[in-house]
């Protein structure tokens, strides 16, 4: 199965999706940008769900993000999945520019995961570009994934990173619900597996925000019939100061 045909199908899907989304877009100033007042952002979340390998699982993540100005920000995070015995840390740098009503974010990320149960160390590098408008965003990028078990290591050839997200309300609204699909999450980059999700947030005030996600992460996709792999729910809070 050659990649060329798959890329053609993916591009066609994306063009059609983009056409659909662009027709809906309205002007907005994105909320992933520096608001001019709060330079720091911290979040904590609790994740629980079920996985075919582990069964019921629970864990939590914490993040800290610092905005230097309207363009540059850095982000660090820690992932602790207790049932899975999976622990990860990440660091991310992001550059933001606005072109007319488009917000464009270019980012580079380094991620380390330790799968204790499977005696595996994983190191991921990713560069991505995210395009945002009022009701949708699309991410495209490349990941390099290296893993080591025992004395053997393997670096997978560069893998396409893709994601799309559409929301019911504009991002400036104090609440929102969205749908997403992507082959990555805060602490993993997958190959050709798609994570389908429904997310939401509720802003209590400019400093406090509640957020959550419900994710279905099937194994196999596109040419393979998808099959149950993992479902998770995540709920957390963000504090800005």
């Amino acid at each position, binding site marked *: 199965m050659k990649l060329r045909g798959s890329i053609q199908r993916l591009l*066609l*899907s994306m063009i059609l999706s983009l056409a659909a989304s662009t027709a809906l877009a309205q002007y907005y100033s994105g909320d992933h940008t520096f608001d001019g007042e709060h330079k720091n952002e911290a979040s904590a979340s609790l994740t629980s769900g079920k996985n*075919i390998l582990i069964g019921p699982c629970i864990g939590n993540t914490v993040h800290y993000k610092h905005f230097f100005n309207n363009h540059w920000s850095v982000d660090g995070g820690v992932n602790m999945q207790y049932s899975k015995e999976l622990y990860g840390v990440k660091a991310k740098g992001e550059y933001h520019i606005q072109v007319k009503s488009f917000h464009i974010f270019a980012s580079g990320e380094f991620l380390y995961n330790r799968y204790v149960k499977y005696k595996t160390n994983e190191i991921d590098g990713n560069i991505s570009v995210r395009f945002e408008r009022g009701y949708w965003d699309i991410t495209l990028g490349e990941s390099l994934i290296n893993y080591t078990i025992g004395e053997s290591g393997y670096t997978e050839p560069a893998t396409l990173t893709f994601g799309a997200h*559409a929301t019911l309300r504009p991002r400036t609204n104090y609440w929102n619900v969205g749908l997403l699909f992507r082959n990555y999450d805060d602490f993993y980059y997958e190959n050709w*597996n798609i994570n389908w999700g429904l997310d939401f947030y509720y802003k209590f005030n400019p400093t406090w925000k509640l957020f959550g996600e419900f994710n279905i992460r099937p194994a196999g996709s596109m040419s393979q*019939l*998808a099959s149950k792999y993992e479902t998770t729910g995540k709920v957390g809070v963000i504090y800005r100061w």
Partner: protein
Amino acid sequence: MKNSILYSLMATALLAVSVSFTSCEKVSPQGVLMGNTSVDDRVKQSLIYYSYHGEDLDWDLTDSIEEYSFLVGSDSHITIDPGRLTEMIEIGIENDDLFYCHLGDLADTKPEYYYNTQQALYNATRTWKRKYIKLYIDEFHSIDDGMYYDKRITPSTKNYLKPWDDWTLPFYPVVGNHDITHNGWSLFCDQFKTSFYEFTVKVGDSYDRFIFLDSANGTLGDFQTDAIDENTLLNDDKVIRNTFTFTHTNIFRPSLNEFASTYCREELYYLLNKLSEWNTTIAFWGHVHAWDDRMFNGVRHITMPSMNFVDHPNGGDDLIVRITVKKDGTCVMERVGLHSKEMSKEDLESMGYITKTA
């Protein structure tokens, strides 16, 4: 608000149409979300089958046989002409290979192509039986009893003597993603019964284990991983010399131009650990239609090229492999060529291989 809902619904509908539109007929568009054939269902069925017939799969070779060989092919994607599969088995029979393994995507999804596959295997079975299956006559059995035996198997084996019709070709496939779309599993299991099974080959005092895993959905699934963890198949105390595993979905990606593995990350690491835990000698993978041969954590991983006419219209010298297990347990790999050319439907009809249709 009303407009937003309407627009969102439109966007979702357009996205769904785009996914469906851009999926070819070889895959099920709805399968992007959730397949209609579950690996768990297949494994449940396979475990039941195994509970009845598991022991029948084991080979206990006569003392005169000190080494043996087997063939492995992958992704034959049979459509009209099953010639490459026929050629593989003919090579195996000519070389006295003990059995033939296939790594999935046997036929190209459509029911009519499974009939061609079935017919090819039926023809191969006749040739195989003529060479290896002999009428058993002794003081207790006459020609009228109609019992037959395989001259390579020890007489103490359970079901050593069987009627002619009960002898089947030693062809061991795993199920691939193209074998399960468009209700393919019902066609596959009608012929092969199981997608998750194991057997041993006894040579002298040594046992070699052969494990066949169902990864057609890009995952082993809940029941299969549980069965593996609970040693549901591997429930005997044989001391194993070599272990060979066979499954469809690849782990290693031979190059940037090829599809990546579709196991979710933790499952990928689970599987790599499990193969090491089993002291696997060689793990065979298909799906990606490209060759890769590497050692990882003590296990040799061989990812197989496809053997179909589309990828290799002129054949090739290295489309399948033969593994020879020597007397001392060492394994020698040899790449074997397939060179048959695809025949047209008309040619196959005129030669009587397929039935003429209106």
